[in-house]
């Protein structure tokens, strides 16, 4: 099976994407890089909100995957900032808490495109990519 034709778990793509991973845990960042670079995507990482926003300003990412609970800026603030810079970047928020415990968006405005429970897996990425290619 050629990795450029089929994604494990279904779905197919010929495109490779530029993905930014923002997470305060080095374990999560390293594993993210390891897996998605193996798949052929271009991966970049940031360890907190502000440095992630900086990268978005200087770079061009198709997908931004960010942790929800981080010390300096939380995921929602990151999502809002990214959308302000480039509104067509897909923003995915990943949370360690059960979805029912995630606080509701302020003013009813949902800024992110996707909200998943941890861990962020290949199936989640397939769903995002599937949505992008429709």
């Amino acid at each position, binding site marked *: 099976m050629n990795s450029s034709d089929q994604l494990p778990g279904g779905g197919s793509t010929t495109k490779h994407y530029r993905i930014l991973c923002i997470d305060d845990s080095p374990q999560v960042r390293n*594993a993210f890089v390891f897996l998605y670079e193996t798949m052929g995507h271009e991966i970049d990482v940031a360890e907190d909100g502000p440095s992630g926003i900086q990268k978005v300003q200087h770079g061009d990412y198709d997908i931004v995957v960010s942790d929800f609970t981080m010390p300096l800026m939380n995921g929602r603030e990151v999502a809002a900032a990214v959308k302000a810079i480039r509104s067509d970047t897909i923003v995915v928020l990943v949370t360690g808490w059960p979805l029912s415990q995630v606080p509701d968006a302020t003013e009813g405005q949902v800024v992110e495109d996707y909200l998943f429970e941890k861990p962020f897996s290949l199936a989640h990425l397939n769903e995002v990519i599937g949505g992008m290619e429709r």
Partner: protein
Amino acid sequence: MSPEQIELPETRLVGEERDVAFEKSVGYSVAPAAFLMVCGYIVLAVAHVFVLPRPESIVMASLAAATGATCAFIWRQGSGVVARYLNSHQIIGILTLLILINVSLHMWLLKDHLQTTQFALAMVGCGFLMLHRGWFAVTIAAYLSTWMTLNWILGGSPNSVHFGYLMTISTLAAIAAHIARRQTTVRAETARIASEHERMAMEEHARKQQEHLEHVSRLLTLGELVAGISHELNQPLASISNLATACEMMLEQEEPTPFRDRQGEAVKGIADAANRAGVIIKRLRGLATKSSRPRSEVNLNQVVKDSAELMASDVRYRNGELRLHLEPNLVSVQADEVQMQQVLLNLLQNGFDALADTSGGEVIVTTSMSDVAVQVSVEDTGPGISIENPNSVFEAFFTTKEHGMGMGLAICRSIMESHGGSISCALREPEGQGTVFRFSLPITPKQHSR
């Protein structure tokens, strides 16, 4: 998880307990008989003074009175009080001495050997009766009265006749009293022993309730930590998940790519992540225990570090900074490690709770020791306890939280007390705002060297 029912023993005595109760009842009923005999002897001795008014009679009467008084005193006080000053051998010795003096006087004065022997034996019998020697005393009393009665029937001196009357009457009275009192005393003893058993059963029940309560408290703490622990566990799990998927993909690749041969790296990453998850889970081991454990040498510095690690899984940990000032040469103490961790965790949670509405707050844990005790203090830089008597936080059902049960600190106090230690709460005085909890444990002498 429900506590066991109290089981009361059957209220019937068997074996040894029954014998003791019976013996006591014999003593209770026969001692008055002995007193009667002594009185009888005194009456006779005094009567002698008037019948044969001689100086010897007076001396005898006085001695008889003295002996009688001693016997009466012993009987009245009971062997308990007298036993504080004299043991039973000494008491028997004193009585025997008095008896011998009486006997010698009697023999010398009246030259009536038969009568002398009779009442010598009677006095010996009285002495033993006074000491509640039970069966032995009853035997002597029965023997003497039989002998006296025979003596009287077969003829003898008038005095021995009177003695015979007295002995027979008092022995019969004793037996009657004994029969009447036996049941009462045995019943009293039974009730006493039954209530003793009941008291012990209740204490055991209370102890089990306390254990149950502590277990429930630990489960609640576990519940509070679950959200945090699951959040922490997600990190190694995400690692494992991604690395394993990457491995899967690498194994499917036919053509060489820069990444294809990194399976070894991936597998190592998976193993490391799994170990990290194991460490997180291991922190919980203490909290899940149900029952009490034996005490062991515990170094409180280690307990503080373990509790701090466990606290790191708690949501509230984000409220502020944790600082530790640990005494490097801290001596170990005899304690239940899990209970100590429970206390510390409770105090840490309360400390971080206090910082909920402040920023830049701190929780500071300090360990120290003196000659006799090891002390741990947990202070926070929050708003401080705002009630008059800070130590009333340890009362059951005291809580300032909406969903709190108010048992955490009460349990802490009972844990400290069961270790022979103490716990207190106060405002942080010299530094200003905040609350400080201090608890201490005694150092048992043999642990002085580490």
